[in-house]
């Protein structure tokens, strides 16, 4: 069946068409100003603006020189702690000395090429995954395969099967950036689907399903993450049958996933409730069953509108990973705190915290920027 071609608009049939162009007008005042006038107007346009500008300049003039002096001009880039103390500025050679420790943690020194390779593989996978054109079921298979390879490289075994040629490295020696990234990424990846299921379960018509989901969400949200980690680390082993030993890092990872899933569930529930009733009824009226209705109509909209809240949860979770010190695992931040206790490098806490802040900021800012881009491209239809 062919749809009829739309008829082109016949211009001549209209009663009035302007034949000549209107005279050129100067641009309105608020565009096309010269740079100097624009600056003058923006920063000194009113007495209040002028006061704010001058105030800010004074604050900067007061803060910047000592800051730059400390961070750059008097800083020490190579040399030992004594050289740092004499120079009096920031001691970046301390960060330089501890840099690889902060990347790899307690991982055996001579085997560090393995986590290095894992980081490279991980970066490659992330680079592929952020591009929408690669989004398909194959990407999930690729991640599962990549995860197995990463795990094999790191630990020297996959699900208990030793990888020939690689020495086993127990998870308690994993550390640094790797642990932080692993916990955050796999925590988020698994918390996402579980969170959706929990959110749907909480709105379910079946009392039992609803009860289970409500209990999970409310229990986890009512308990601090650190006590969940404590339970996973010290209480769970007491309940396990003798001889069964679940790895500590995995126990912590499970605690993270459960925690993040509960929070994600509430985020998704907010999204589900924000979808107008008409969408549900519309789906019902065209005869979709429950799973079709959710999959095709409701969830795509609910997930889209909750992107800012999802990213909020992920960023929070990323920063919470540092609590794994409680189970004796040295994540990125803990490696730095640990380096502060090196008797040869005592007293450079500020440098360590600046470095940590920079790394966390880069990661969180990247997440935030990516989510905003995603929001724009996914929300094409609803943009105002």
């Amino acid at each position, binding site marked *: 069946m062919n749809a009829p071609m739309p008829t082109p608009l016949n211009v001549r049939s209209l009663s009035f068409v302007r034949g000549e162009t209107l005279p050129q007008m100067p641009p309105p005042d608020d565009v096309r100003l010269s740079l100097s006038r624009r600056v003058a107007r923006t920063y000194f346009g009113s007495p209040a603006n002028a006061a704010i500008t001058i105030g800010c300049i004074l604050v900067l003039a007061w803060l910047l020189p000592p800051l730059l002096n400390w961070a750059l001009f008097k800083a020490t880039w190579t040399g030992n702690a004594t050289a740092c103390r004499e120079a009096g500025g920031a001691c970046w050679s301390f960060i330089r000395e501890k840099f690889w420790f902060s990347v790899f943690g307690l991982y055996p*020194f001579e085997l560090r090429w393995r986590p290095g390779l894992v980081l490279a593989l991980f970066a490659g996978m992330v680079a592929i995954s952020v591009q929408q054109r690669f989004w398909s079921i194959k990407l999930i298979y690729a991640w599962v395969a990549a995860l197995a390879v990463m795990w094999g490289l790191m630990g020297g075994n996959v699900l208990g099967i030793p990888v020939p040629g690689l020495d086993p490295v127990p998870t308690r020696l994993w550390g640094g950036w790797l642990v932080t990234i692993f916990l955050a990424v796999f925590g988020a990846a698994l918390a996402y689907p579980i969170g959706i299921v929990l959110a749907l379960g909480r709105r379910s018509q079946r009392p039992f399903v609803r009860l289970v989901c409500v209990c999970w969400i409310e229990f986890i949200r009512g308990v601090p993450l650190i006590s969940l980690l404590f339970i996973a680390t010290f209480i769970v082993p007491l309940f396990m049958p003798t001889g069964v030993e679940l790895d500590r890092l995995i126990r912590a990872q499970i605690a993270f996933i459960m925690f993040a899933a509960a929070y994600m569930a509430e985020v998704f529930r907010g999204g589900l409730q924000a979808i107008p009733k008409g969408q549900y009824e519309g789906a019902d009226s065209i005869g979709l069953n429950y799973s079709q209705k959710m999959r095709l109509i409701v969830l795509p909209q609910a997930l889209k509108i909750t992107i800012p809240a999802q990213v909020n949860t992920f960023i929070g979770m990323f920063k919470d990973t540092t609590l794994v010190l409680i189970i004796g695992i040295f994540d990125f931040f*803990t490696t730095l705190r640990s380096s502060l206790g090196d008797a040869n490098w005592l007293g450079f806490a500020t440098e360590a915290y600046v470095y940590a802040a920079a790394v966390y900021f880069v990661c969180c800012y990247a997440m935030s920027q990516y989510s905003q881009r995603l929001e724009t491209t996914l929300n094409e239809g609803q943009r105002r």
Partner: protein
Amino acid sequence: MKNWLMGIAAVGAMLFGTTVAEAGRDLDQIKQRGTLRCGVQGPSNPGFGVPNAQGVWEGFNVEICRSVAISIFGDPTKVEFVPVTTQSRFPALTNGEVDMLSNNTTWTLTRDTGVNRFNFPAIVFYDGQSVMVPRRLNVTSAKQLNGATVCVQPGTTTELNLSDFFRQNNITFRPVVIEALDELRRAYDQGRCDVFTNDFAALAAQRTLLTNPRDHVILPERISKEPLGPTIRQGDEELTNLVAWTVFALIDAEEFGITKANVDQVAATNTDPRVRRLLGVEPGMGAAIGAANENWARTIIKTYGNYGEIFDRWLGPSTPLALERGQNNIWTKGGLLYAPPAR
């Protein structure tokens, strides 16, 4: 929160019977596993236990662990270091995550006897809360500090000991309470308080970071007793003996003048039966404590030296911490270290 969590772990442990005492059980388990799991202070503790840039644990407490591993296995590398925090150390020991804590845990009555039921086989470091003051104040005793402002960390026993001490001596103080040790030191350095209090070893570490370390003195009073030593679960006499005698061997070696450099020569030439028994030249002691072999003490000394050498390497005057031996000298030199004889 600490007590609450420890309580849960302890109750769990009791319900599920993981602390049922059987002689030699822990030691058997360690031997079967092939490694000693040693709890060290995380993230780190200057001089006592710090991972180096290559991620290898180093320090005074670390070498105590490795010495115990030599006694058990004859091999200092058969140790797994498990970082524990002040909150997680006792649950970790109770549920078997670690076999031994070597993280500056103070030996107290309740820790020895309470629900946790730990054993403290030996003391390796006599610490105690001390006070530091600027030299220009000309103070020679903490009792002269009436009305002083004191920089102190909140919520620790440090704060409690401090107020106890001032109350006992009927003098008053004004606390300046700051959580982070770095900030606290800065406050003291800038003169916001007259007195800086902490445990002696920590205080000495902080002193090195002051603008002019020489202008400050740590007063001789110890306003609390903090005997620190390796901690194990109660109920394994064999392991207790082994840990205790590992420490005693280090102390006895210093008393006899046996060092890392001369241990082989001493073993070959010394005629003192006490030395010959300790070094396994006359066998029997190793078998008696259940060590891997008769050379246990000799291997330890050959690897790490005697107590004094370990102390000097990590805490002594040549290190940035520059601790004096003080109470941690052997008894013949005015300290408190006194080990029973090996016979």
